[in-house]
């Protein structure tokens, strides 16, 4: 039983990543306001970034350094964290802000059309219009 507890505590980055992911997912499903849903979407995306960056990290012994190679580092046998997930996540951050911008443009357009940004009110109005 002790090894299980140790295993859970040693990988707390992943547990927190899953917690944040579920917080964002809850906001996307349960909140009525469209901008609140987008805040939830941002939180959800950040959880996935945290998961990937945790994969790249090297544990306490030996400690990894930032992936910048120098002469002095190479001769002293330092290790550095894996730079590949960093590059993937760099792209994902830029994509996430583009997604947010498009979604906000759609929210503004819906507000001009329906006069509200609450999801249930929009659905009611659509039902009255017979869409």
């Amino acid at each position: 039983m002790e090894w299980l507890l140790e295993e859970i505590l040693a990988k707390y980055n992943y547990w927190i990543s899953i917690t944040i992911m579920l917080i964002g997912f809850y906001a996307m499903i349960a909140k009525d306001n469209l901008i609140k849903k987008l805040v939830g979407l941002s939180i959800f995306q950040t959880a996935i970034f945290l998961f990937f960056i945790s994969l790249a990290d090297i544990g306490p012994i030996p400690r990894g350094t930032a992936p910048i190679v120098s002469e002095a580092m190479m001769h002293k046998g330092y290790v550095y964290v894996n730079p590949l997930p960093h590059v993937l996540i760099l792209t994902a951050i830029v994509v996430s802000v583009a997604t947010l911008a498009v979604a906000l443009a759609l929210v503004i357009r819906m507000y001009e059309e329906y006069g509200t940004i609450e999801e249930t009110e929009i659905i009611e109005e659509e039902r009255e219009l017979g869409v």
Partner: protein
Amino acid sequence: MIIPIDLILLSLVVVLAIVAITVRDLLSAIMLLSAYSFLMAMVWVEMHSVDVAFTEAAVGAGASTAFLIAALSRTVRWEKK
């Protein structure tokens, strides 16, 4: 990975995420999301991924907050319920 700093920052991140989706004022929610992104950038500096950290600080905490506030100025500030 410096364990105590990492754990403290990540706990703060979870608290900020919960508060950001609970608060009723949308402007407060956006500013809390900005603080959340900035704390996330600090977590990434601590995990030695500096390139991701400064992109997150510029794009996540800067640009997306500006976009959200711009969208809020065209719509309504308060969440109904």
